[in-house]
């Protein structure tokens, strides 16, 4: 117990509060009782924490928003002869237990998600009761609970009294040894080949069932008085080494992917990959790299070099937070683009406002703001992958996932040093192409991180920002009159203005907007819009295929193909 207390040490205070142990009523509750109560409570907290950690480790591919994992027995989905206790993990029999008609079962709260790939739970026999007629297994929703698992259609069980397995039938097949008080029985569902095997005290007993249907629930059934069993859905370490079994299947699936035939003519495969890489480079306007790559792989580039360079110039401006210049340049180079696309213009302007607050936009910077260079620290990829943007509504998820991938790919290039000569001028601060970003730089490079001040701290800049805000407000009203309500625009503006409500916007709840990461989606939206006007794809095929692969995997999870568990796209993006 000491260890447990130590582990949750931080939660102690909170626990005290919740459990109601204030100093004034300490004396009313007997100390031993209080201690037991507290310890139980801490135990539960600790268990909960361990459970979540273990489930996350075992089933990383499961999206619990969509398909929650079983964590306990369901008090709603059971026969009346079943009693639950200990956080719905302990099951006991409370019927007469005279005939098989008195059998009773309980299902877990949720079915087993296919994205587990391999799912496992264990049941410890606390007492075999009178006759030990216990069944451990699986059943589909709606299967009669006044029965032991295995007796009915879509129900499967392994019974303790005779060691037989019951596959949707009243008569069992010889399967394994019998089990009784003290034994730990495990049930493993392989959602890749739809089989199931059991374990007894950590030893695999071999396949029991094949051709299992999807969406089965962990189920136990009891039949005579005194029978008590405890479930372990991951609250405790398992007796059987399930992770070792999962390792084997992960290796199998990955070998299957590695060995997947890629067509007979290898040259075609190679040419296709080269095309994808080239189009990706062009899309993100890494013109020198794209040029060099196209040359060495003997390909034609489908966009004029000048056009690529233009886009590159604009992207650099956006990514360095110089929105005013970015908008201006876009208007110069693509005169009709923003005129025709007012929402895009609005978005750019809102971003400009944010950059003003940040003190990075050129308009305020020239009024005494600070150098854009200080904001140049390029975001690291792991953060990007977890950034909250990607958890938008479901219709947007797809899009943002792809943005994700794009950024990731870009970073790859930088870290490989492939494109050091050109496209990442804003990273190195020594651009050979495009406009000179250094023109307005002051000497305040280092001050930025320590003293973050509104609009860089200049009064003139603040005034300009306020004025710009008013213009933005009126543009928003104008847009609403012209084109009706647009909740996205409204929210965008509201969030941006909210920054002014805090003395330190950077550490405020809306401060994330100031993060340079937020420039990424703006940049790629603008880039895509420009490309669209040239009848070029909004997204590079490479990002599209990465996005498609990710989408495929989530589709597999939904349609019950367990192998998606061991084929994360991330694993292949290193």
């Amino acid at each position: 117990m000491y260890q447990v207390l130590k582990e949750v040490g931080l939660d102690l205070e909170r626990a005290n509060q919740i459990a109601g142990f204030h100093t004034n009523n300490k004396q009313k509750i007997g100390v031993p009782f209080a201690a037991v109560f507290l310890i139980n409570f801490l135990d539960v907290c600790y268990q909960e924490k361990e459970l979540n950690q273990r489930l996350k480790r075992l089933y990383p591919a499961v999206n619990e928003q969509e398909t929650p994992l079983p964590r306990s027995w369901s008090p709603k989905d059971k026969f009346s002869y079943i009693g639950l206790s200990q956080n719905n993990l302990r099951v006991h029999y409370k019927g007469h237990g005279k005939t098989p008609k008195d059998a009773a079962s309980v299902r877990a709260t949720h079915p087993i998600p296919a994205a587990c790939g391999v799912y496992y739970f264990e049941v410890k026999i606390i007492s075999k009761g009178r006759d030990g007629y216990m069944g451990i297994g699986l059943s589909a929703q709606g299967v009669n609970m006044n029965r032991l698992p295995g007796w009915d259609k879509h129900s499967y069980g392994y019974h303790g009294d005779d060691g037989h397995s019951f596959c949707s039938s009243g008569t069992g097949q010889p399967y394994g040894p019998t089990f009784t008080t003290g034994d730990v029985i495990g049930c493993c569902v392989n959602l890749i080949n739809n089989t199931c095997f059991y374990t007894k005290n950590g030893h695999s007993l071999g396949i029991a069932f094949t051709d299992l249907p999807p969406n089965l629930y962990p189920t136990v059934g009891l039949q005579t008085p005194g029978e008590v069993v405890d479930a372990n859905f991951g609250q405790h370490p398992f007796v059987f080494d399930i992770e070792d079994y999962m390792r084997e299947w992960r290796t199998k699936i990955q070998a299957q992917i590695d060995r997947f035939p890629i067509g007979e003519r290898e040259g075609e495969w190679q040419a296709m990959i080269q095309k994808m890489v080239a189009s990706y480079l062009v899309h993100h306007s890494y013109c020198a790299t794209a040029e060099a790559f196209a040359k060495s792989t003997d390909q034609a580039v489908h966009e004029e070099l000048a056009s690529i360079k233009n886009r590159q110039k604009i992207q650099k401006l956006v990514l360095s937070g110089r929105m005013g210049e970015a908008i201006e340049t876009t208007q110069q180079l693509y005169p009709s683009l923003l005129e025709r696309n007012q929402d895009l213009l609005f978005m750019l302007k809102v971003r400009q406002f944010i950059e003003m607050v940040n003190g990075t936009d050129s308009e305020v910077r020239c009024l005494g703001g600070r150098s854009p260079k200080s904001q140049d620290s390029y975001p690291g990829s792991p953060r990007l992958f977890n950034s909250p943007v990607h958890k938008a509504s479901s219709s947007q998820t797809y899009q943002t996932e792809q943005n994700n991938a794009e950024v990731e790919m870009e970073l790859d290039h930088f870290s490989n040093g492939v494109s050091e000569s050109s496209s990442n001028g804003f990273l190195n601060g020594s651009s050979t192409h495009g406009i000179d970003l250094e023109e307005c730089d002051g000497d305040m490079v280092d001050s930025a991180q320590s003293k973050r001040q509104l609009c860089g701290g200049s009064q003139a800049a603040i005034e300009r920002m306020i004025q710009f805000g008013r213009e933005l407000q009126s543009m928003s009203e104008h847009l609403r009159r012209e084109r009706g309500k647009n909740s996205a625009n409204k929210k965008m503006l509201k969030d941006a203005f909210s920054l002014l409500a805090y003395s330190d916007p950077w550490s405020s709840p809306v401060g994330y907007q100031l993060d340079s990461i937020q420039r990424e989606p703006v940049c790629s939206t603008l880039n895509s819009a420009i490309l669209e006007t040239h009848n070029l794809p909004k997204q590079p095929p490479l990002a599209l295929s990465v996005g498609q692969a990710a989408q495929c995997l989530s589709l597999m999870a939904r349609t019950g193909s367990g192998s998606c568990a061991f084929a994360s796209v991330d694993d292949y993006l290193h």
Partner: protein
Amino acid sequence: MMACLLEAPLRISVLSEVTATSRHYVDRLFDPDPQNVLQGVIDMKNAVIGNNKQKANLIVLGAVPRLLYLLQQSSSSLELRTECAVVLGSLAMGTENNIKSLVDCHIIPALLQGLLCSDLIFIEACLRCLRTIFISPVTPVQLLYTDPTVIPHIMSLLSRSQHTQEYITQIFAHCCKTPEHQMVLFNHGAIQNIAPLLISPSYKVRMQALKCFSVLAYENAQVSMTLVNVLVDGEQLSQVFARMMQRDKPIEMQLTAAKCLTYMCRAGAIRTDDNCIILKTLPCLVRMCSKERLLEERVEGAETLAFLMEPDIELQRIASVTDHLVSMLADYFKYPSSVSAITDIKRLDHDLKHAHELRQAAFKLYASLGSNDEDIRKKITETENMMDRIVSGLSESSIKVRLAAVRCLHSLSRSVQQLRTSFHDHAVWKPLMKLLQNAPDEVLVMASSTLCNLLLEFSPSKEPILESGVIELLCSLTQSDSPALRVNGIWALMNMAFQADQKVKVEIVRALGTEQLFRLLSDPDTNVLMKTLGLLRNLLSTRPHIDQIMSSHGKQIMQAVTLILEGEHSIEVKEQTLCILANIADGNTAKELIMTNDDMLQKIKYYMGHSNVKLQLAATFCISNLIWNEEDGSQERQDKLREMGFVDILHKLTQASDPSLCDRAKTAMQQYLA
């Protein structure tokens, strides 16, 4: 040039095949300009790669001695010497005949000598060639141990590079075949030197190091005990091995790591109830038996598993329920499968090659599984066609299969129930008897041991076996040079004589002959002596039989009994002998043989006062039979024995602390009171 031509062996038939180009390569090795020689060797290297015919040609043309000469010459440049070693290594990669020719040219000492050079590249080339030669089955491994300085030097080369590590560990893994080899390597620090290689970044090095440990630890307690205490990077070796058995590791690695742990466990270095055995090694080996594995892996897996659990009933019980092992093994008998015969000749060939190995491995594993637990035996005999498979296994041409089949049968024959049912139903005694006719000793030992069980009194096979003329066969076994066979022969006779008809007993005595019987009573093997006494005791049961046998062989038997009671023998032997005496005392006429022998009576008296209760009990039993009331002449015997002071002793024994001795003495005393 001329010299070279003369040196070439003139074998017409071969010469006709030798092409002019091959000859040209050899000629260049004799060029006076070292630079040309070097270029010649390099060209030769490029020419022989992957070309077995070219390799054979060059060997026939005498390239080997010249290459060896160049390699050993200190005047040769290092580059040349290295290239020579590379070409020789390439030649060794060819057929077994190539290896033989190279070994005949004394390549091994030359290469071992080369290892003394300081240049790493050259050393690696030599080791690589040595490796190729030593892993060939045609190379005598002893050649590695001829020069005692070689092993320590090779050991010191382990630190040089990943390549030296790979080659050296591979050589050790192949050349450690006897306990002597194990000790040589062990004494030169093999364990300390190789253990760190288990975490080498190179898979090949890790794998070969692992193999080294498996051959070093096999049936070697000293090595195994040392291994458990070795730490690799702060981790116990058993943990390192356990990690190598993880299911995502290559099968070869899992299997070899499981072998290491098995050998350490069998050598007593790891307990059988250790988690790394019970939860890791055993399940890993069971997985190796599954249908998904290659045939070779399944054979090795089953054999290793059989070895692991042979002495431990708990492991047998766990294995018997793990992954349907018992029925999984039934699949071992289905090669070549009927499908492979039709569809795929290559597959058929492969299946055929492994069919025997698979069957014998399965029999071995069944034997091990069923050696202690009655439920498991039942499960095995209930496996599809199991008894038929054993019966046909007993008469297979492969001796390995026959041996394994009889081992399996022996293991199952320990079951009373199986003896009564399946053994009789399948008339297993028939092929067993046939097997006993002329088989090598190891098969005979197992078969006769099984026969012992089949001759147990309750076995329904006993009758038909008797009728098949088994007695002569068993008697001949008692004359074998092998103690194990003598024991089994006499043991079987003993079982046969238990509660047997007079006819059978007479037949046994006749066939064995008293001379042989008494020879066995002085056998140096205690087991043989014990079983012979057991046979005598079984022969001397029921009064008429006792009297009949004693009337014809009484003198010799009494002599033998005297000899044993006077000799230096264990308590068990003497107890058995006193029991025989007690049986004799139960006869009607046979009694007199004791009563008239005062010396013998004194001996009985002595043993009644012995410090060992068992001997006291047997001796008292004997006296009790002599003074038994209802028989003729009991009064005279009682009187005589009273005179000799037996009553006093009996009286004393009624106070004995041992309850059964006390009872026995009281019963005897009652004979006087009646």
